[in-house]
């Protein structure tokens, strides 16, 4: 009888849950980055506030903001996706999809 040996080493690619990522953590990080952006006043900021219409950012400010988010999360956001991210909730949803975290 051969004992089936269990594999003692598992090759594990870091999954989102193992890295401790959840939608709440992502939301917190995104909102921190946005609040640190000096062109945005923290009082008017909500998750649904539109960057250009409500917070008064122009397109170059938008680019700077997305670059700050790219630096925070460590990966590049391509142009065609970047154009659509106009509210913090869009950014959170996009990041959840990219990092395979469940979005509710």
């Amino acid at each position, binding site marked *: 009888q051969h004992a089936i040996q269990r594999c003692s080493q598992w090759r594990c690619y870091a999954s989102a849950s193992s890295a401790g990522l959840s939608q709440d953590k992502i939301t917190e990080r995104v909102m921190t980055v946005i609040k640190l952006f000096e062109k945005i006043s923290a009082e008017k900021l909500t998750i649904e506030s539109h960057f250009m219409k409500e917070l008064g950012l122009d*397109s*170059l400010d938008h*680019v*700077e903001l997305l*670059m700050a988010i790219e630096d925070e999360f460590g990966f590049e956001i391509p*142009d065609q996706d970047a154009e659509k991210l106009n509210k913090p909730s869009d950014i959170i949803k996009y990041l959840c999809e990219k990092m395979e975290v469940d979005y509710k």
Partner: protein
Amino acid sequence: LMSSAGGTLIRQAVKEAKPVFSATSEDARRRVLNLYRAWFRQLPYIIREYDVPLTLPMCRRKLRENFEKYRQVNDIRVIDLLVAKGQMELVETAHMWKQKTHVMDYFKQTVTPKPTDFLGKFFDGKEP
């Protein structure tokens, strides 16, 4: 600019004008934003490598100022050429082909500004 009324001939000329790089204004906008991104990312390295007496906020403001200078431009071919020149500047700066004084040129005004008030113009000997 080219959509002025009574310019059917002009409109035709626009339709036939060969694009420089971008075919649509969307394309041109993307190029502009990518140039801005590239410069923005390069700024900390420029400050460090050229050892210029500048801070990062100063450089960012100057970068934004140089982009705002051409905010009103709508002609796609002009935008393409401006982006091309900006790209050339970036390549020269990033490869250290320039020197410290070239980087400082963005900040210092080497041209004495022309006087605008009456007394200034008078002392300069110019007619009002």
